[in-house]
């Protein structure tokens, strides 16, 4: 009985069950990071990023029984919708769009390449929704390189792909710190945002890291 791996299982229920376990991990992580993310947002934004993602996490936990009845693609799309409906700040439409576009791209029994393609579709969706690009000091500074790394390595070894995804996310986060914010409330503080961690980039890094950990624990 494996946890979800990027490797394809022929039992969709098993895939979804493991995905729900991953969802629990992410929700717990984000609830625990509420104060840290609020603090980062307070420095260059409006201090609500942690609270917003905590609200999303609580809403997703409530949705768990419903998600368990759905196919992988439907569940990810439904989760994205719940994020949009529950959050109220800019992170709602952004993370919600990430999940909704991923869900639309996922086949019923996704393999590693399908997950990589879905992640890429989700990241494109975030860029379109936020009318922003890598380098604007947003979550895209982490998500875009992570997604590229996963896509490049997805056909090779799973562990290497996950390690590359995590390393790219960490590099992206470090690079983002030195940038000047061009989108979101942080853009209003302009030059003062340089040297501060973007709260969206930080939450994205936390999530990418947790996904890599979770999937890496299974030998695939």
């Amino acid at each position, binding site marked *: 009985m494996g946890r979800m791996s990027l490797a394809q299982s022929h039992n969709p229920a098993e895939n979804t069950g493991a995905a729900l376990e991953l969802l629990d991990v992410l929700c717990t992580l984000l609830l625990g990071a509420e104060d840290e993310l609020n603090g980062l947002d307070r420095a260059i934004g409006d201090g609500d990023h942690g609270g917003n993602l905590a609200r999303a996490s609580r809403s997703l936990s409530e949705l768990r029984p419903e998600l368990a009845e759905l196919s992988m693609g439907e569940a990810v799309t439904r989760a994205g919708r719940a994020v949009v409906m529950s959050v*109220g700040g800019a992170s*709602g439409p952004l993370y919600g769009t990430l999940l909704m576009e991923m869900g639309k791209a996922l086949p019923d029994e996704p393999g590693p390449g399908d997950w990589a393609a879905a992640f890429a579709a989700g990241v494109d969706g975030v860029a379109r929704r936020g009318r922003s690009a890598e380098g604007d000091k947003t979550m895209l500074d982490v998500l875009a390189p992570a997604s590229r790394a996963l896509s490049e390595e997805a056909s090779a070894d799973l562990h290497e792909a996950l390690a590359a995804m995590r390393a790219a996310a960490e590099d992206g986060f470090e690079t983002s710190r030195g940038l000047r914010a061009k989108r979101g409330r942080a853009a209003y503080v302009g030059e003062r945002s340089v040297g501060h961690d973007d709260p969206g980039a930080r939450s994205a890094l936390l999530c990418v890291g947790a996904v890599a950990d979770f999937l890496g624990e299974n030998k695939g």
Partner: protein
Amino acid sequence: MSVALLIVSHSADVARGTADMARQMAGADLSIAWTGGNPDGGLGTSLAAITEQLEAVWREEGVAILVDVGGAEMNSEMAIEQFDKAKAKKIRICQAPLVEGAIMAAAEAASGGGLDQVCRAAEEFSHA
């Protein structure tokens, strides 16, 4: 009927106040709705509430939305995407400051301007 306005702010008080101000300046015939606050009543916006207000004010002449920052615009875009294409085409988000834009848009709507003119009136203010 004239073009309707929808005010979307992170704060319910700001949204209500802006709508009141625009109505007092443009006249009681102005059709203007507002929504503000996240689904828990804190600062933020709610996709469900925006969609509900859009459904309430939608008309053939069009609806112009005025937003404050970030998430208000993205949630408004997502709300518009809930409508079928023909209806969605008649809903526009104005790229203008919330209060000033609402006043300019309200004046234009009350004097019978079409959706393009209403949005232009709001947006021109920001370049003035």
